[in-house]
């Protein structure tokens, strides 16, 4: 058990290190200095990208696919809850009963949402067309991570299984699609910066020159 506990920290640190390395490798491709004169404010665009721009009343794809949007939020909430839970167990911290209850709710909701999203990917032809094995593996692994975390919160005997799955999940993060956990912030920043600089976002302005 002590090995597993240590393994959780080491694998998470290794993962964070490799993800950071990937970001540096990405930066090595070089950034282009922009010469055109800005029309809007890039920082307002960035604020929009991480705030209002992700809301269903602002983002068409979220509004059109509200169940998927909500499932996505719950799923990621579940994953973060599972990471938190793995660290709590690895650090042998005792969680108050109320915290544990909320954790279980987040894990249960996250697991249901994850399975739903996996089913959507498997069933819908256009999603199958878009998917590669890594998409299914990453989704299944995250589902297993959340599920084992949920079970470990109820059955002590499952804790070693959960910690093992946590180690595997952490180690897989930099390799496949889960690396988007880092690149999400990078991409959204660029998105906000691009449209903010051009004066497109945030939102349609009132009709004036």
């Amino acid at each position, binding site marked *: 058990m002590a090995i597993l506990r240590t393994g959780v920290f080491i694998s998470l640190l290794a993962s964070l290190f490799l993800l950071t390395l990937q970001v540096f490798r990405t930066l090595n491709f070089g950034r282009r200095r922009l010469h055109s004169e800005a029309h809007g404010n890039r920082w307002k665009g960035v604020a929009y990208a991480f705030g209002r721009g992700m809301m269903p009343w602002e983002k068409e794809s979220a509004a059109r696919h509200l169940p998927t949007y909500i499932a996505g939020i719950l799923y990621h909430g579940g994953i973060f809850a599972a990471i938190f839970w793995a660290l709590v167990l690895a650090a042998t911290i005792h969680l108050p009963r109320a915290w544990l209850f909320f954790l279980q709710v987040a894990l249960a909701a996250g697991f249901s949402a994850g399975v739903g999203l996996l089913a959507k990917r498997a069933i819908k032809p256009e999603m199958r067309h878009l998917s590669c094995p890594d998409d299914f593996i990453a989704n299944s692994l995250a589902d297993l991570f959340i599920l084992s975390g949920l079970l470990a919160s109820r059955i002590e005997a499952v804790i070693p299984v959960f910690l093992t799955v946590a180690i595997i999940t952490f180690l897989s993060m930099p390799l496949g699609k889960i690396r988007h956990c880092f690149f*999400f912030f990078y991409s959204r920043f660029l998105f906000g910066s691009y449209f903010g600089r051009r004066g497109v976002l945030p939102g349609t302005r009132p009709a004036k020159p």
Partner: protein
Amino acid sequence: MTMPPNSSDPLFERIRGLSEKDRQKIFKVFREKLDADAVAYLNSCVHCGLCADSCHYYLATGEPEAAPAAKLDLVNKIFKKRYTLLGRTLPQLVGARELSRETVGEWVDSLFGRCTLCGRCSLSCTMGINIFSLIRAARSALAAVGLVPPGLQSTVDTAIRTGNNMGISKENWLETVAWLEEELRNEVGDGRVRLPVDREGARILYAINPREAMFFPLSISAVGKIFHAAGEDWTFSSTNFDVTNYGLYNGDDEAAGIMSGRLLQAAKKLGCSELVLAECGHGFNSNRWQAPEWLGKKSGVKVRSILQVVAEYIRDGRLRLDSSRNMKIHTLHDPCNLVRLGGIIGEQRYILKHAVRNFIEMTPHGEKNYCCGGGGGQLAMTNFAKRRIEAGKIKADQIQKTGAAVVVTPCHNCIDQLMELNKHYKLGVEIKSVCEIVADALVIEPMKTNSALPAI
């Protein structure tokens, strides 16, 4: 690839004949176009598919290949194979693929034939991926080995060779201007109205879409009338008058830089402090936003859209408009390159508020508008014309829902596509540019004295 393997299409003949050297060149240029931002984007796509129904191609056809994520994936597969650990070691696992004749064929078919580079998918993307810029990077790589659909490439070649994309000679251009000037004097009833050419020291150099000279001369007259009414100090160039830049669409940055550079140079040579661009979506994006990046330096002159200038005239009381002259129901189509990618959103609405009595917005509109289907060089690529008209159904439906009699759009590419949609989907609408609408509403006192204009 939708083209049969034995197709006699020269483009696909070229793909079949691709050598290893060509393949390396495609990859080399593709790599050159990838900067850190592009790589971050490529690492971000999670195949969530939520972008699919933001694309007019997907909405109109339901083809999985038309989903923006699927188009991006064509590019990403090649990237993964070369630059990711799993892509190199276990390509099937992450869908990585080699750059082969087959993948190149798919690139040509989807990245040229199923995308207008309108950028709508980026607004819907969960990660905010700038999908159109990656697709354009792949187009650049294809352009490097001559794999641009012939219609689009010949537009670029003509512009490079002759100075404008329609190959209008200087003599023809000057004759057209002289004829339009005469017509405008008669219309306004003022012999001092001028459409100046090569007037050194003018404040503004005005650049048109050559299609206006060939097919829509009223657009040119309309702007001349507006400049006259506002007492503007302006000029055309006799040689560099083309606002368009199809280098934006074929991905050839060098050619694009030459075209935009000529316009900027013409403005500087004539001593103009401002380059004003006609109603042209991609012309605005190219000359306002992209040109400094293609040329690697600041523009050196102020570059604005005619919409910004006209809106300013109205605000400053330099134009008198009578909106009762435009009583029909008007709606507005937002050109993607001008609005979503250009940031000109409020100006056209401000102008129309003063120039028409009945205005109704499309749903959605502004930066969330649907592309008409004519962008991305589609109007020049005849081999994909059927798809273009099919994808335009989304815009046609939008127009129909407004119940408008007049569709106004500040882009001549959009006007061309909307005219085709009008005919194909039997919309029964008039299609006009913003300046034509303004010119119709313009109140000009005959023989008005205007000290800003020199007497002839």
